[in-house]
């Protein structure tokens, strides 16, 4: 698997390229399931849960800028994330794992701290921030709410946003985006003021 191929996958994630993402999902699924069943004795349903979580964490790490390039094959990355998810569930006793082919050192080894933090400790903070943004979007109204949602939630290209919102070109979209972000910040400041 070439570096070019890895870069194409990361680009597909950054651009929310549904077709490429679906192809990526389908092409790695079989291997991931076989790996899960062979090493951890999971059922297909359990493998499905872990596979979806692993894909979601890959997506999170790329879109947040934590993962800029892949030094290994994408499937190796997914399996590594999958292993961390299982180890974390094993430690928090959420899941009993029938370890078949995993050396015991791996079971007690150190996980990637970033991944674990993402899975458990930041959940509550992210939920709060999600509710904050939902609230801000409802306060700011349209067209800012639609524009920001298209760009930051749906991951649409500015050209597509220009087309959807009837703006002259993507330059206008970029300007409006900065203006709308500034406006969001002002709402936060306004609401933080004591009455």
């Amino acid at each position, binding site marked *: 698997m070439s570096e070019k191929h890895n870069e194409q996958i990361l680009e597909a994630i950054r651009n929310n390229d*549904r*077709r490429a*993402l*679906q192809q990526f*999902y*389908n092409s790695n*699924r079989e291997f991931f399931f076989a790996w899960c069943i062979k090493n951890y004795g999971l059922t297909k349903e359990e493998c*499905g849960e872990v596979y*979806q979580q692993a*894909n*979601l964490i890959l*997506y*999170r790490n790329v*879109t*947040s*800028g*934590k993962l*800029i390039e892949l030094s290994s094959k994408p499937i190796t990355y997914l399996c590594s994330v999958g292993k961390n998810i299982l180890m974390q569930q094993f430690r928090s006793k959420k899941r009993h794992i029938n370890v078949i082919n995993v050396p015991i050192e791996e079971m007690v080894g150190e996980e990637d701290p970033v991944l674990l933090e993402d899975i458990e400790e930041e959940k509550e*903070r*992210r*939920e*709060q*921030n*999600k*509710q*904050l*943004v*939902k609230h*801000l979007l409802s306060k700011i109204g*349209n*067209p800012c709410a*639609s524009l*920001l*949602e*298209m760009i*930051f*939630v*749906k*991951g*649409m290209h500015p050209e*597509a946003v220009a*087309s*959807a*919102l*009837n703006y002259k070109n993507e330059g206008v979209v970029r*300007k409006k*985006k*900065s*203006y709308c*972000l*500034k406006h*969001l*910040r002002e709402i*936060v*400041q306004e609401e933080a003021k004591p009455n």
Partner: protein
Amino acid sequence: MSKIDKIKLIEAYHTGQLKGQAKNSFNRLLQEDPNFETEVAAYEPIFDGFNALREEEYALTLQEFENEYQIDQHTDKGPIIRSLRQFYYVAAAAAVLFLSVLAYQLTHPSLFNQHFAASESIGMALNAHRAANDVSHAEKLKKEALNAYQDKDYESCITYLNGYRQNFPEIANKDYQALVVLGVARLARGKAEKAIETLTLVMDSRDSTYRQEAEWMMALAHIKIGKEAEAKKILNVISQKEGHIYQQKALTVLEQL
């Protein structure tokens, strides 16, 4: 540096796109301007919240990928040639499996998943629309939406149709094809309440072209949110209408409810 330029830098920082010259400018500003540092921190929950919402969307997309993968696995299997004795065993096993599946389906609560599918009749109309050239902006938006619908990218379809309705309400609110597509796309994304809002517009209209489609989807939307009594009312109407394209399906679902 203007306030807007600073916001652009902050956005690039929080979305992991800070490179080269921009990265240098960012670091220099952090050192020189304490207010800038405060601003960077203030935007963090906003970008974090956006990322959380984006992930929520992607989790739905992953579930769609899984559903489509499983459907493909069931439909892609080619013919298998076996000896006659093997055939009997297979037939007996299949009969047992069929009865088990039937029993399971009759008692399974998710009727919605059994019956919901993007309509073929809408699909045919989309092909006709695709052929149009020299389109206005309103038509272009609709075309983008219908293309996304055919590609099963329901989220983009919803986005384009919302844009269509916001920018051209006088056309879009009477465009019952667009409304029924929006309703189905919303249903496909699990937004049943929103789907009901949209489908109601089609059902209440004088134009009957898409009413049958809307009625069927409306029944499924009510099943999806657990309002079975409402669904039954609609299904009874459909099942009693001679020539309704969903008459047979409505009877099947009524038996299952």
